[in-house]
């Protein structure tokens, strides 16, 4: 063996030794993310991976305040139609390209023009991006757009290296986040490694992170218990006891932004022509017949939170006029009688064929029966349920929403005329007006008042009602230090380390 070879060998062995000591955090996810391209991504788990991979212009704190990330400062003009942004200096993308105003412009334009971009509607209010200089940009809007800043704190605000646009972005996204893309095996793992030139590198002590999609919650937990994973997303509420009972594991919890509820078909096709679709009193009666606390206790071991409205109690937009309704079977019966159905009536509720949803609707079924409502459950595969819902082939649907930072994201598309999620085709001019206005004002108190105004109408009309807010639950190995769950459900790796 000549000297060079020996040195090479030593070098290789040296790196393996370092590799063995390297801190790799292994995270178990509930499903395999879709395309790793911020402009094409549509899955929740995809956003989790992006949190480590791609910095956004703006970030969110656990208290849902917008804080600087790639943009250090921003001001919205008086008329709400111009946003001035100051960009962070000295930031580079994973390929070494510097991050500047031109890059922001290129990224926003990509979101707007890429053929299969799913971000288009989120940034449609941006008419042009003016690059003032390398660290200053102005966004010119066609109309005031209050939720835009929150969109820029999500995938629409993620910055890709413009040099990477030409290639297949999803196959190896080049961003400016704390970790860079290393490898992906579909349905098996996504591996990221530390980006040495990260602007906030001091906050990052992990050397690498890998995400492993494991759909079955039992198997995911088993991997955590056997030490094959360090952190698991979506720990089942009923498994929290098991985690608590282990001296090597702990669990993390954060109130989420999303909800689960019942949506009614009020005007979408022939099937809307049923008592519940036509009479808000009956919808109210069903809501009153449900014991939200019992559902939370039995199905979720009390770890979620009973819900009354489209934002959770933690949100600054929560409307105290509508607390979680107590079960009131007498009042429910009275409403049903008033509507002319003393002899009882029936309702079909469709729900995903997943055990948790099925447990919830079975409980609702039993509770509603006491008020004289006979519920039949139509269990459907999720893909079928979505298209049946869009086509109006349902009476009522047990569906949910993972939640957005801005309240607009939790309500606008669901109840406005022609909204993307408004599958019951509920339509009320007044609601349309109020919610459109709430989009255009940036003053928080004014928006609050508007949402409360909308609430009043929606609570009376009840095109949908809410059952519980989901909490984010994590199983965490005791080797992991510094992990804090966030209400947006993202796994942030700043300050996270592994002890051996």
């Amino acid at each position, binding site marked *: 063996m000549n000297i060079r070879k020996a040195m090479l060998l030593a070098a290789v062995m040296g790196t393996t030794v370092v590799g063995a000591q390297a801190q790799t955090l292994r995270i178990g996810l509930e499903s*395999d993310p*879709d*395309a790793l*391209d911020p402009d*094409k991504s*549509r*899955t*929740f788990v995809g956003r989790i991976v992006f949190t480590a991979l791609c910095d956004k212009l703006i970030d969110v704190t656990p208290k849902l305040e917008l804080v600087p990330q790639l943009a250090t400062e921003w001001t919205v003009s008086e008329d709400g139609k111009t946003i001035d942004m100051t960009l962070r200096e000295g930031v580079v993308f994973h390929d070494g390209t510097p991050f500047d105003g031109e890059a922001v412009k290129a990224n926003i334009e990509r979101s707007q023009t890429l*053929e*299969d*971009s*799913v971000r*288009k*509607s989120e940034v449609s209010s941006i008419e042009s991006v003016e690059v003032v200089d390398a660290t200053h940009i102005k966004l010119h809007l066609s109309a005031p757009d209050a939720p835009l800043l929150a969109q820029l704190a999500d995938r629409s605000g993620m910055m890709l290296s413009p040099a990477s646009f030409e290639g*297949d972005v*999803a*196959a190896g996204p080049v961003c400016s986040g704390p970790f860079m893309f290393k490898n992906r*095996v*579909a*349905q*098996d*793992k996504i591996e990221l490694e530390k980006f040495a030139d990260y602007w906030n590198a001091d906050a990052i002590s992990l050397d690498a992170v890998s995400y*492993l*999609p*494991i*759909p*079955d919650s*039992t*198997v995911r937990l*088993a*991997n955590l*218990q*056997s*030490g*094959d994973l360090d952190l698991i997303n979506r720990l089942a509420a009923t498994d929290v006891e098991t985690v608590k009972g282990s001296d090597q594991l702990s669990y993390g919890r954060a109130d989420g932004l999303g909800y689960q509820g019942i949506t009614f078909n009020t005007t979408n096709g022939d099937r809307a022509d049923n008592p519940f679709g036509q009479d808000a009193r009956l919808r109210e009666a069903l809501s009153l017949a449900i014991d939200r606390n019992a559902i939370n206790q039995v199905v979720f071991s009390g770890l979620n939170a009973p819900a009354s409205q489209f934002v959770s109690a933690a949100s600054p937009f929560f409307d105290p006029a509508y607390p979680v309704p107590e079960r009131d079977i007498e009042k429910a019966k009275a409403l049903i009688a008033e509507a002319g159905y003393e002899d009882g009536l029936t309702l079909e509720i469709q729900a995903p064929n997943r055990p948790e949803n099925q447990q919830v609707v079975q409980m609702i079924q039993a509770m509603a029966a006491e008020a004289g409502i006979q519920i039949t459950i139509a269990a459907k*595969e*999720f*893909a*079928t349920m*979505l*298209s*049946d819902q*869009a086509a109006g082939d349902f009476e009522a649907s047990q569906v949910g*929403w*993972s939640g957005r930072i801005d309240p607009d994201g939790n309500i606008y*598309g669901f109840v406005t005329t*022609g909204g*993307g*999620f408004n599958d019951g085709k509920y339509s009320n001019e007044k609601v349309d007006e109020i919610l459109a206005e709430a989009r255009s004002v940036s003053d928080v108190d004014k928006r609050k008042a508007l949402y409360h105004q909308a609430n009043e109408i929606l609570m009376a009309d009840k095109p949908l009602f809410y059952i519980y807010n989901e909490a984010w639950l994590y199983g965490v190995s005791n080797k992991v230090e510094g992990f804090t769950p966030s209400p947006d459900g993202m796994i942030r790796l700043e300050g996270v380390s592994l002890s051996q």
Partner: protein
Amino acid sequence: MLSYLARRVLIAIPTLILISIFVFALQKMLPGDPVLALAGEDRDPETLERLRELYHLNDPIWMQYLMWVGDAVRGDLGQSIRTGLPVTEMVLSKLPVTIQLAVMSMVFAAVIGIPAGIVSAIRKGTVTDYVANVVALSGLSIPNFWLGIMLILLVSVKWRLLPASGYVPLTEDPLQSIRTMLMPAFVLGTALAASLMRHTRSAMLGVLRQDYVRTARAKGLAERTVIMHHAFRNALTPVVTLAALLFGELIAGAVLTEQIFTIPGFGKMVVDAVFNRDYAVVQGVVLVTALGFILMNLIADAAYVLLNPRLRVG
């Protein structure tokens, strides 16, 4: 022999075309819109329509089919609408995973099934025969997803002996790769062992009745020699044939096993694709599986002829 095989290959072509039509028709009948299923939480109506156009979902079905066939003939199985990756590439990357699982399961099945079959044939009608039979059938009767979960809880969580799930490529870390695949292969292998055992048993019984075995015994050869050299070698033919035919059963079994152990192979890919309405992936996987199945049948036929000297002459 060659012309026989050539004829078989020719017959396989219409079969493949039929399969592709079946699968295509079936998935087009599936309720649920792939774009909507994919959209999940980003359901802007204008975007949905744009994507439907982009993926040609608004074209007539026969046109979609012809387009697919045109590409497939050139080796391009289309693009997954979920991950945006080419299906051909996805299928090729899963192939080694499922083949490794299949081979290791087959090893388990053979190690359990063949000796059990020989023993129960020799001890026909005795308690040993019954016990071997019931044990082998038990493997076939346990739902393998149930066995899988039980094993994970016991072996991985409780005893911490083997990894609970996942996959490590053989080329990356052979030992870890085999360790990870041990439980799933065992689960799948137990189900196949029963089939192998039954066929070994009946093939052995058939051979043991033959004149040449009687002759061998009459010559005073040791019983062991008679069994292994004369009887088993001849009984091997139908067993090998069967092993090739079990391929289909193996892939079907892999569907749930891969689901439980989160092994990124064919079975998992196809189930996920059905649920996500990722048509191109379903179509691609089924076609390649069917191709494999037909190939294994051909191999079985060829093996039958090769291993059977009496057929080789004619």
